[in-house]
Each structure stands twice: as structure tokens, then as C-alpha cells.
């Protein structure tokens, strides 16, 4: 008699064989990441928030354990609710601080490939999270530490070049495994940014006025005056 348990056992065995076949065929000829979980973080410092992007790429030898950690109902698919819980689990292991104060990272979106692509080790879970911040002008420091699945993971953590000209990134320090990144940065006041714009506008205006004035001076003797061209005055 075929029970649900035996069916499940059969499915699991088939899946395990498929994974084994994938691992054995792919790894011997193309050493793409196989027994590591690559977690690549990019940190973006903005005047009103800090955003963290995290690309999670399981190697084919560890993909099944990652999927098992997400697929709580064991139906083989990664549902939105399961992904919601998984993202929360990952973010719980991320410690983000601004000037020593802990920040609460909220997920703002994620992309998840189908489980088959994850099993093949050729796609990533991409998640974005952000923490609001009220920055004052002056020197600041943000620290990021990722402690999710240190047993199987390799890490990367980088600071994106800021989009805002109010932010200037200074020194960056990491631990040897890139689980931790500390970034010194400076926030310029809005007045500074707008004063820079005013300076540019002033220089452009001065240039324009000067050119017009010079044209008037240089053309005075040579150019006929418009009023002299007036036929009524001829």
C-alpha cells in the first residue's frame, strides 16, 4: 500500500538523486560555487535612510538545505509567505548601526527565482531592506554585520558610491571574511549643497553678463546702431 509517507520518501529520494546527479555532473567540469552560500551585501547611504541590498546565492551542494529552510510546508515551491518569513529570518541576523545606535531594517522587496534555479546554483535570492535615518550634518559612522548562516557562508560587503552630493564616504573597515563593514562618512548640510548650486549659477550669470557687456563695448564703433537702420530716420 502506498502511503503519503512512502510517496514523500520516494519524492525525496528522487530529488536527492537529481541533486546528486547535478552536483556530480556540474561540479566536475565547472567549479561554480558549490558548497558555499554567497551573501553579497551592498550598502547605500542616503540622507534620509540606509538601504541594504543582499544577494544570496547558494551553491548547488548547499542549495537543498537552504530551500528546506524556506519551504516550510515541504511542497517544493517557495510561496510568498515562506519568503516573507525567510527574509525576516535573514534580516534578524543582520545588525545595522548608525553611530552605535541599532537600526531596524525593514524589508522593502525581494526577488526569488524558482526553486529549481536555486537548486542548480545558478540564481540568487535578492532582497532589499532599508532603515530610516535622520542625519545631521557632520561626521557619522554606519556599521553592518551579517551573521546569517556562518556555517556555510562566504560574505561580501560593499558601499555603493552615494547618489547624493551631501554624502561623502570616508574610511571603510572590514573583518577578513567581510561579515562586518564599518563606514565613516560625512553629511554636508543642505545649505552647503544649495550654496554649491548657487555658486555655479552665479559664475554662469557673471560669465553671461560679462560676455554681453564685452560684445556691446567691442561692437559699439563697428556695428551700425539699430536706430540708424530705422528707415524713418533715413
Amino acid at each position: 500500500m502506498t502511503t503519503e509517507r512512502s510517496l514523500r520518501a520516494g519524492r525525496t529520494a528522487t530529488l536527492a538523486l537529481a541533486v546528486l546527479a547535478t552536483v556530480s555532473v556540474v561540479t566536475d567540469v565547472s567549479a561554480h560555487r558549490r558548497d558555499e552560500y554567497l551573501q553579497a551585501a551592498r550598502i547605500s547611504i542616503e540622507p534620509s535612510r540606509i538601504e541594504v541590498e543582499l544577494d544570496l546565492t547558494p551553491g548547488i551542494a548547499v542549495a537543498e538545505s537552504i530551500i528546506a529552510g524556506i519551504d516550510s510546508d515541504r511542497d517544493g515551491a517557495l510561496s510568498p509567505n515562506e519568503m516573507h518569513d525567510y527574509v525576516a529570518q535573514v534580516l534578524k541576523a543582520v545588525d545595522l548601526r548608525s553611530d552605535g545606535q541599532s537600526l531596524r531594517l525593514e524589508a522593502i522587496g525581494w526577488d526569488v527565482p524558482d526553486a529549481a534555479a536555486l537548486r542548480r546554483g545558478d540564481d540568487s535570492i535578492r532582497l532589499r531592506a532599508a532603515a530610516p535615518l535622520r542625519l545631521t550634518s557632520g561626521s557619522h559612522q554606519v556599521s553592518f554585520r551579517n551573521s546569517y548562516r556562518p556555517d556555510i557562508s562566504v560574505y561580501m560587503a560593499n558601499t555603493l558610491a552615494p547618489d547624493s552630493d551631501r554624502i561623502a564616504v570616508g574610511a571603510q573597515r572590514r573583518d577578513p571574511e567581510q561579515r562586518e563593514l564599518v563606514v565613516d562618512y560625512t553629511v554636508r548640510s543642505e545649505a552647503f549643497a544649495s550654496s554649491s548650486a548657487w555658486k555655479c549659477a552665479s559664475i554662469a550669470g557673471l560669465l553671461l553678463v560679462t560676455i554681453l557687456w564685452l560684445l556691446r563695448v567691442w561692437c559699439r564703433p563697428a556695428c551700425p546702431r539699430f536706430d540708424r537702420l530705422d528707415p524713418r530716420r533715413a
Partner: protein
Amino acid sequence: MPSLPRFATLSCLVLLGIAAVGIAQRASSSASASPATQAEVTARLAASAQAVLATLDEAGRAKVQFPFDSPQKTRWSNLPSPMFQRTGLRLADATAAQKTAVMALLSVALSRDGYRKVIEIMRGDEMLRTGDTSGPARGAPNGGGAPPDRSGAGIAGGARGRGRGMPGGGGPEFGQDQYYLAFVGTPSATAPWMLQFGGHHLAINLTLMGSEATMAPSLPAAQPATYTFEGQTIRPLGRENDKAFGLINALDANLQRQAILGYRVPDLVLGPGQDGRSIQPEGVKASALSAPQQTMLWDLVREWTGIMNDAFAEPRMAELRSHLNDTYFAWSGPTTNGSAAYFRVQGPTLVIEYAPQGTVDHIHTIYRDPTNDYGAKFARR
């Protein structure tokens, strides 16, 4: 003359002088090779692309041509097919005449060295297909062998067939026939279009607009990084490796301390999917290097920019040199050649990364211009 007008005249002359210097610098950086030469190469490329199209029937042309603003632009990867699903004309499906036309097109698009590199990367993948990856000691810093000719011999008539795969045939396809050609936009001497050629460990994205061209982003990679072909040791990315080790070892202890990052970098930071992005630069500033060290740095950079036809590579190098003060060289890993070490060259319009995948025999690299990936800068003009 009253003092105010004199001041105004002086100010105007100073400002005009500054503007003139800026214009001159811009001209010298963008046109050290004559625009006519670049335009001429673009015209030859367009003609070669049309020659490829002429070998295809209507269905074939529909398969290889995509609108300029289509998502095809960003459809590239280091992964083999079908782990990453490519579209376009696959060499395995091409006739001998079509393959010859494709290789002739590449020989116009690329420099002699660039063409050699592409062929050697493809042949390396053929080694993966056949399982014959025998070669000399891994990472041995020796020559890369004689460059292949530009006739496409050995590729145009290359072996057909699937690579190793998983049961059921859904596994990765390796081999020199598993490379795809696509045109994004209509090949033209003046209008913007893009030549895309790639497969496992290779993505060449050459965007052209009249006399201007950019190869950003492109991904030359290699596995095996060393193999034997016709009795010669081939290292597709051997010169990149050796020049980088040469540079890091040419730096004194102080400069090395600035260049070497105190952490492990396991992969590309700005690999596929990171178009137009830039990270905060790290490492030693190029302006801190001595003149011979700077020459070594630009020689290293040239390994990527020089994949393009020389007519496009020369003005690009001139532009990059103009950013000397904002260019950085960073290193992670041992400094003994033969070791697996990551390095990065980064400037305002450049990102080059070289990332061994845990072994010296499997290398990924990336070449980007964050301001001009896929010709974004050309489009803005």
C-alpha cells in the same frame, strides 16, 4: 577704461581660458585616434554584420536581431546554457558559411589580442566539453602561446554536439559551438546598435554609435585558465594575471599596504546584473604610483580595453588616463604569482575586476564603465 570694465574683461578672458582648456582636454581624451578611423571601423563592422544577416533566412534574421531598447541588451551571463538561457544565433546551429561570417565580424570588432582572447576562452570551454583539460602546472607564469589566426579556423569548422550534461539532457552545455551572436538594434554606420557575442565565461557587449564605441559591460573569463592546445600552453587570461602580479610586486611596502585590502573577496562585486553601479573606491591611488608603475597599471587596463578594435581602444585609454587622480588599484590575496588573488582597477568611468573562483584555474573578470554601460552616455547626447 574704467576699472569695472577692465575687471570684467579680465574675468571673461579667465573664464573663457578655463572653458578652452576644458574643451581641449575633452577633445584630446576623446579623439586621440582620428574620428574618421573610428567611423571607418564602425562602417566596416556594420557591413560585416550585414554580411552575417545576408547568410540567414528570414526566420534566422528574426532570431538574431532585437530592437535597440529591448531587454536583450542585458541578457548575458558567465553561466553556461541552459543554466542561463541565451537568445540569438548559436554557433552550433549555424552553417559553415554563417560561422565564417560571424568570425569575420568578430575579427573586425576586436583587436588581434581581443580576438585571440575570445578564441582561447571558447577553446577552453571546448576542453570542458571534451574533458581534456590536461595542461601544465596551474597558474604557471609563462607565455600564452602563439595567437590564433583571425580566420576562425578551428571555430568555424568546430566540433558540433552537446556538451556533458545531466541525465535528461538539461545540463550545462559546454564547447566552442555554444556561443551566441545577437544584434541589438540594426547594424549601422551612424545609428546606435550593439553587437553581442557570448556564452559560458564570455560576454562581449560592443555598443556602437557612429564614431563612438564602448565595450562596457563585458565579461571575459576562463576555465580552465591553463590548457594545452596543439602542443602549446594556452592561458586566455594569463597576461592579465601576470601583469597584475608584476604591478603589485613593483610597489614598495608603503604602496602595497595601501593597495592590499585586508579582507577576502570571493567573487566579482559588480558582476552580471550590476549595470551602471559603482562602489566606493578602495586601494592605492594611481597618482601615488611612480611613472613606471603607472605605465604598468595602464598596460594592465589595456588587457581589457584592448579587446576592442584598436580604433576604439586608443581613445578609451586616453580618456582613462585623464582620470589618473581618481583611479585606484586594489588587491586581495597573496602576492606570489601562481596564487589565487583578486584585484580591481576603478576610476570614475572604469571598473575592472579579476576574481579567481577559489582556484587559479577558474577566473571571472568584468569590465565596466558605470557612466556608459551599453552606451548610456552616447544615448544621452
